[in-house]
C-alpha cells in the first residue's frame, strides 16, 4: 500500500507492508485523520495516488472501498445512535449484502439467511469485545469507553484486511488501553493495521513501523526504536508534546 501527495498533506509517501502494524503519529493537525479520510475516500486528494492490494483507491466510489476489505474507526465515533449496538456492528459487516430494494421488499430466503449470518458474525465480535450484555441497547447513551469498543467492533465485524484505527485509545481508562493493545495484537496477522494514536506507549509497543507526520509531511519513518532516537522527531513531535 502506498500513499502519495495528499492535499492537507503534501508529498506524503509511505508504504505499509501486508500484515504489519504501522503506527502513524504526529502532533494535532499533522494530517493523520485527513490521510485516513483520503484512504476511506471520504475526501478526495487533488493529486497523488493511493493503492491498496493493487487497486487504485482513488478510482473507486466511496462505497466500494469497504468491499476491498478496508475498515476504519472514527476518532469522534461513527456510530448510528438510533440503532442498537448489535445493529451498529451488523452495519459494519453488511457491505457484502446483496439485499437490495426488490429482494428486501419480498424478504427472499437469501435475505433472511444473510441477515442470520450477519447477526451471528456480529454476535461473535460482540462477545469477543465483551459487549454482549449491551447488544440490544441503543448506542445512544452508553459510556464513552463502551462506545469506543463498539466502534472497534463495527470495524472488526467487516473482517477487514486493512484496518484503520483513528485514536482508539483516546478517552479510555488505563486498564482499557492495555486490553485494547492486547486486542490489536490478536488482529495482527489477519489484517494490516494502521494505527493513529497519541498514546505513545501503545504505539511503540504494537508497531512494526512508525511513520511520523508533522505539518502534512513525513518527517521520519522507521522502527519504533529508530523513530524514538530521531532528532527531527524529538524536536518536532516529542518536543512539543512533552
Amino acid at each position, binding site marked *: 500500500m502506498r500513499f502519495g501527495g495528499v492535499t492537507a498533506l503534501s508529498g506524503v509517501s509511505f508504504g505499509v507492508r501486508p500484515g504489519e502494524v504501522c503506527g502513524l503519529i504526529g502532533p494535532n493537525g499533522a494530517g493523520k485523520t485527513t490521510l485516513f479520510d483520503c484512504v476511506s475516500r471520504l475526501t478526495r486528494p487533488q493529486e497523488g495516488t493511493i493503492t491498496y492490494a493493487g487497486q487504485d483507491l482513488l478510482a473507486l466510489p466511496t462505497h*466500494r472501498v469497504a468491499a476491498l476489505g478496508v475498515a476504519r474507526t472514527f476518532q469522534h465515533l461513527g456510530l448510528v445512535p*438510533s440503532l442498537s449496538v448489535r445493529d451498529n456492528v451488523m*452495519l459494519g459487516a*453488511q457491505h457484502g449484502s446483496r439485499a*437490495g430494494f426488490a429482494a428486501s421488499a419480498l424478504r427472499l430466503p437469501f435475505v433472511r439467511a444473510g441477515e442470520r449470518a450477519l447477526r451471528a458474525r456480529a454476535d461473535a465480535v460482540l462477545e469477543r469485545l465483551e459487549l454482549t*450484555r*449491551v447488544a*440490544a441497547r*441503543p448506542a445512544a447513551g452508553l459510556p464513552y469507553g463502551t462506545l469506543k469498543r463498539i466502534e472497534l467492533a463495527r470495524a472488526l465485524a467487516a473482517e477487514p484486511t486493512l484496518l484503520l484505527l483513528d485514536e482508539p485509545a483516546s478517552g479510555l481508562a488505563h486498564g482499557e488501553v492495555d486490553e485494547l493493545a492486547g486486542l490489536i495484537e490478536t488482529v495482527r496477522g489477519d489484517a494490516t493495521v494502521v494505527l493513529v494514536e497519541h498514546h505513545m506507549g501503545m504505539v511503540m509497543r504494537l508497531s512494526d513501523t512508525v511513520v511520523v507526520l508533522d505539518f502534512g509531511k513525513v518527517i521520519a519513518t522507521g522502527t519504533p526504536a529508530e523513530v524514538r532516537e530521531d532528532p527531527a522527531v524529538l524536536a518536532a513531535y516529542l518536543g512539543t508534546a512533552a
Partner: protein
Amino acid sequence: MSLVTVVAGSRAHRALRWGTIAAGTAVALAVPFNSSPSLNGDLTLVLCYAVAAAGLGMLVGYAGQVSLGHGAFFAVGAYTAAALLAKTDLHWLLALPAAAAVTFALGLAFGIPALRLRGIYLALVTLALAVAAGPVLKRAEPVTGGVSGLSVPQPPVPGWLAVDADQWLYLLSLAVTGVMLLIAVNLTRGSLGRSLLAIRDGERAARTAGIDVARVKTLLFATAGAYAGVGGALFAFALGFVAPESFTLLLSFTLLSAVVVGGLGTVAGAVLGALFVVFVPQYAGEVDQALTGIIYGGALIAVVYLLPGGAAGLLRRLRRRLIDVVEPTPQRGDNDAVPTSDTAPVGGQPAAGGVRP
C-alpha cells in the same frame, strides 16, 4: 411494573406478535360489515392515505428526507389509474402496478437531481413539484379531462363475493394496503433498514460501511413515490372520479402530517396518522363548521407536543405498561461496565433498534 414479561424472540413473544396481527386483521375485516356505507367510504379513504403515508414515512422517518411534494405523486397515481380505466379496456387490477410504475419512474427522474439536495432544499424542490401538479393536471386536458376531471369505472364487485360496493372497495383497499405495509416493514428492517437509518443519522459511517448513499436515497425516493402512486390509484377507485381540486397543495401537507402524527419511523403509524387526517377534520366540522381549521390545527399541535413519537409511540408505551419484552440473558462475556437491565429504556427512550429521532 408490567403485567407480563416475555423474552424477545421466545415462543411467547412470537405468539403475542402474531396474535396482535391476527386480531388487528380480524377487526379490519369485520368493520365494513358493522358500519354505514359512508363510514366505509371514509375508511377506504384512510387506507388510500395510509399507503401514501407509509411511503412518505420511509422517506422522512427512516432516511430523514423531507418531501413536501408527495401529493403530486398521489395525483399522478390517481390520474394514471383513472386514465387507463377510462380510456382503455385494461383490467382494474393492472392499473395498480401501472400507477406504481409511472410514479416510481417519476420519482427516479426527480430523485436523481434531488439527491444532491438535503433538508430544507429538498423540501423546497419537492414543494415546487406539488405546486406545479395542479396547473399541469388542468392543462393536460386530453389525458386528464382538465378542470372537469375524469370519471373512473370503479372495480366491480366480483360475482363470488356477496358484499355491497362500499364494502368491496374497502376490502380491496385493505388487501392492497396490507401488502404495501408488509413490503414497507420488510424494507425498513434488515440490511436495508440499517442503511436507511445510517444515512439519516451517520452518513460518514454509512459511506465507510459500503453503502451507496446516492443510490439508496434515489431508490427510496422513487419507492416512496410509488407508494403515493398506489395510494392515489386506490383513491381513484374509491371515488370513481378524479379532478384537480382533490390534489391541492394541501394534500402534500396532509400526507406529511399523517406521517408525523402517526409516528416517525414506524410503519403502523401511517394507518394511525391517516385515521387522524381523515377523521379529525370531519369531527371538527361537526363541532363547528367555521372553526374546522382551528380545531384541526389545535389537535395537530397537541399531538406533536403531547405525543413524542406520535400515535404509534403512544401505543408502544401503552404496550410496554402491559408487556415487558426483555432480551435473552447472555451466557458469557457479560462483564461490562454498563449497569444492567434495570436501566433498560423506558418511556420516551427508543427501544432497542428503535428508530424515533
